[in-house]
Each structure stands twice: as structure tokens, then as C-alpha cells.
């Protein structure tokens, strides 16, 4: 079944929040279930960052114990390295997906570990932005989708050095076409890329298949300088940069199959994240009223693809 048909079977999730192992234990961190109770519309689902060797922490388990929707965000696979798809890891992913019953799998399509897979690495770097690398990545997306039976949405990773001759959006357009897959567009990461390349925030959208975007991420960042080199620290703070908001507004307005928006802010207290959630909720309300119709589709967890 082509993506254009498969996407209609994916559930609408709306606005959600992310977590990863131990994040909820940090002092001052967001309690995702408290957020859900206080503002159900801001935490309609939980994106669970998973390193298969660690499993799920108490916060993720408490969430799924209430039978609430999730997505599975992998933190431990270099999709373009075939050696990464070993039987032991795939069995762990299937088992964890069985617990989470996610709407889909997603995650940064970059280099999570240096050398072979190691516990606790999670040291993310972007792919080389070349046609050859895009094709290898697409093949990995298909391999994982076939192996676990869920949609796999590759996400554009952050970086300070981007090598290659393709624009990041052209790279992921090629991945999406070859893998016939949906995408997770991280708007903050895209803003970082545009800044590094010296481009305006919306550069590259002219040839980009927005109908492939199923989920977006929004997060705060901090502008920094190193010896004259300007870069953005993807620190997941609450100060979302203006460039990121421009990208978010553009995509929310124009991506017809957008089904999920994550505000990545789990390491911040509730009071600090309210403005970001409120602004995103407002954008989604506007879209529901006037835009391409987010709010359609099923709201229940999806069956495997």
C-alpha cells in the first residue's frame, strides 16, 4: 500500500510532549502525567525516547498504564548502517513496541553511536547530505518498517557541521520518495541547519513534499558563538527561536497530513513551558478552523502498519 493510502490510516494525535529514560527524574523536570491532568489538550500523547537496552522508565510505564497514546522515538539506531539491525536489537524493539503500542516509530535519522552500538551513547550527529547517504538511509527506513510492522518516520537531526551538497529538505525529500515514507520534521533542527548554511528559515520548502510530514517537533534553542562561528545550541529550553516559529507556522498551515506536534520541553518546569504549549495549541486551533483539516482521522492508537 503506498504512503498516500497508509497515511490516512494513521491516527490523529494532536499536541504532545516527549520524554526519555530518566528525564522525568531530573530536578524541576516536567511531570508528563501532571501536564496531562492539568492540560489534556497539551499532552494528548507521549513521545517516548527509547534506548532498547535501557527499556522504559517509571514515567513512561505510568503513562502506558493509563492506556494513553504514544509514539516510539528510537535513540539507538544508525538507520544507514545495515549492521545495526541485529536480531537482538530488533527483538527488543518489537517487545518495547508491544508495551507502548505506539502510533508509529520515529526518530532522528543520524548517527546515534560512534563505532558499533553502545549503551548510553546517544551522541547524535547528522547524516552526510548526499544522494548516496539519502538512499542508504531510505533503505534503512524500509528495513525497520518491514521488521517491526510500524510506520517509521525519519527525523532531520541537529548539528553544527553539515557536510554534503544537498539542502537538508532536498535530502529528506529524496529519503521520503525512495522509502515511500512519511517524515518527522524537527522545526528547531531545520532552523539550526538554515542558520549554519546562512539561509533564511523557509529556504528549500519550494521543492519539499509537505504532504509527507506527519509529525513536527518544536523546541527551544540558544544562540552561541565559537571563535566567530555562530551556531545554535539545541538545548530544548523554553525559548523557541523566531526562525523556528516561522517554520512551525509555515508547516502547520501547509502540511495536509500533519497529525502530531511535540513540544520538546520535558526537562523544564510546567510554569516555564505554558507559553510554548499555549502558542502551539493556538496554531492547531487555527488550523482546525481554517487549514488543511488536522483533527480528522482516528484518535485511537494505530494498529501496526
Amino acid at each position, binding site marked *: 500500500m503506498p504512503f498516500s493510502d497508509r497515511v490516512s490510516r494513521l491516527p490523529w494525535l494532536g499536541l504532545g510532549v516527549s520524554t526519555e529514560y530518566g528525564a522525568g527524574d531530573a530536578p524541576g523536570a516536567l511531570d508528563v502525567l501532571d501536564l496531562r491532568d492539568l492540560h489534556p489538550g497539551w499532552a494528548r500523547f507521549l513521545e517516548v525516547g527509547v534506548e532498547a537496552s535501557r527499556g522504559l522508565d517509571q514515567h513512561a510505564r505510568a503513562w502506558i498504564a493509563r492506556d494513553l497514546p504514544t509514539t516510539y522515538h528510537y535513540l539507538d539506531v544508525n538507520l544507514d548502517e545495515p549492521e545495526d539491525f541485529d536480531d537482538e536489537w530488533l527483538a527488543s524493539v518489537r517487545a518495547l513496541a508491544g508495551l507502548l503500542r505506539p502510533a508509529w516509530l520515529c526518530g532522528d535519522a543520524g548517527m546515534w553511536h560512534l563505532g558499533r552500538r553502545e549503551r548510553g551513547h546517544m551522541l547524535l550527529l547528522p547524516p552526510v547530505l548526499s544522494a548516496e547517504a539519502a538512499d*542508504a538511509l531510505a533503505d534503512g527506513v524500509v528495513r525497520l518498517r518491514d521488521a517491526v510492522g510500524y510506520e517509521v518516520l525519519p527525523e532531520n537531526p541537529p548539528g553544527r557541521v553539515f557536510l554534503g551538497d544537498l539542502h537538508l529538505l532536498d535530502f529528506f525529500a529524496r529519503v521520503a520518495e525512495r522509502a515511500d515514507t512519511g517524515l518527522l520534521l524537527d522545526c528547531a533542527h531545520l532552523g539550526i541547519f538554515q542558520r549554519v548554511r546562512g539561509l533564511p528559515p523557509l529556504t528549500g520548502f519550494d521543492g519539499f513534499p509537505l504532504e509527507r510530514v506527519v509529525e513536527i517537533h518544536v523546541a527551544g534553542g540558544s544562540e552561541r558563538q565559537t571563535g566567530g*562561528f555562530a551556531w545554535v545550541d539545541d538545548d530544548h529550553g523554553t525559548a523557541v527561536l523566531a526562525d523556528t516559529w516561522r517554520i512551525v507556522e509555515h508547516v502547520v498551515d501547509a502540511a495536509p497530513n500533519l497529525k502530531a506536534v511535540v513540544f520538546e520541553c520535558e526537562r523544564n518546569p510546567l510554569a516555564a513551558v505554558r507559553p510554548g504549549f499555549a502558542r502551539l495549541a493556538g496554531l492547531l486551533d487555527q488550523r482546525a478552523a481554517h487549514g488543511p483539516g488536522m483533527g480528522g482521522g482516528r484518535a485511537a492508537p494505530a494498529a501496526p502498519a
Partner: protein
Amino acid sequence: MSHLALRRVMVRLLHDPSLVARLYRNPDAALAGVDLRGEERRWLLDTPREAWGSDAERPQRVLAALLDEFPAAAHLVPRRMRTFFASEPFHRAVQERGSLAAAFGQHLAGEPGARDVARVEEAIARVRRAPRGERASGAGRLRLGAHAAVLEVATGTADSLPALRAGRVPPRAGSGREHLLVLRTPGADDVALEALPDGLAAVLAAAAAGPTAVAALAAVAREHGAEPGEDVAVLETLVVDGLLL
């Protein structure tokens, strides 16, 4: 697959300022042995030099993950840790998709004061990562399972680990040598250390080289004092214990 080779060079540059300096001074020498196309080399050189060092905390984050498994050796030679990212084991592990933990252990073991402790911690890290559900060797052959390792170290090395991990002064090491079995507990991540008699260590060390004829392993057992009949019984016990596959 040169995009992977290129990305691995990128990783090395992000962690090793000395490689960055060599890249801009003499790219041919810095990139020797790496199969890159001309345009890929140009992408590296077109990158602002300051960008490679913009995440000064990145190496520390990698070290933090590695230190979980090498607390004792790191306690002994803290300055050695700081040179890891310029070391040959680090660059080889990244470029050849090896184990970073093994490379770190190898680097720490290069310092005489930490050699045996680092080897033990490297073996612990290695057996912990061994695949589950290993298959038996072919008929008539046996090998040491990857979940086990045999080491010869200075007497007292194993006893020094708890003190070093706790940041305390360890008991003085003996002048002799001892054999240790490093063994991952079946079905768990726990790893135990056990002193081995010389004869048993010799048999297991011979089997560690890969699938070995049972007759050859029995001969090793006899060389170390096993009687005919007892030699095969020893091997059968090691198979039942899951050490030999």
C-alpha cells in the same frame, strides 16, 4: 559507502583538535587511508575550522558514558583519559565501526600503572556486549563463549577493583601472576570474576582462539596434569557450564 567513511571522519574531527589541525595543514596526510571522493574532501575543508570545536563538551559526554565501565582504571590514570580522543584506538574504532569501550580499555591499558586493571575492565565490557544465544561450534570442536574471557594479570588485580571503584587506595598488588575468568551471568548483564587454576586457564585460553578440536583441548588438559579420561571429563563439565560451545 563513502558517505559512512566521511561521517566517521567527521566524528573524529569533532573529538580530536589535533586531527583538525592536521586536516587544514596537510589534508592528504590527515586523511590517509580513508576512501573519500574529491568532493567529500572538499566538504571537509570548506567547513569553518571553528565549527569542529564548537561543542567543547561533546568529548566529555562520550567519556562520561565510557567511565561507567572503567572507573577503576580511570581512577589510576586520570590524565590518560584526556588523551583518548587523539589515540590510535579511538580513531580506528570510529573509522572501522569498532567498539569504543574496547578502544578506551586498550588506550588505558597502554599506561603501565593501569595495564591489568584496564584489561579486566575491558574484558568485563566485552563479555557484557557478547551476543545472546550463541550457537555451538561444529562437530568435534569447541570454543570459549563470547560471554566469557580468560586473563592473566598481576596477583591481587581482582581484589583491587572494589577499592579503586570506590576511589580508595587498593591493596598492594602481588609480584606473581594469576588467571581470572570473566563471566557474564546467563540471562543478565551481571559479570563475575573468578580465579582460575592454571590448568583450567590453559584449556579455556586455547579455546578462546576459536573453534578448536576437542582432541587438542584434551591434550592441553593432559599437559597440565589431567589423567586420560579426566581430560575429556573436564571438557564435558565446561560444556555443561556453558563456557565451551
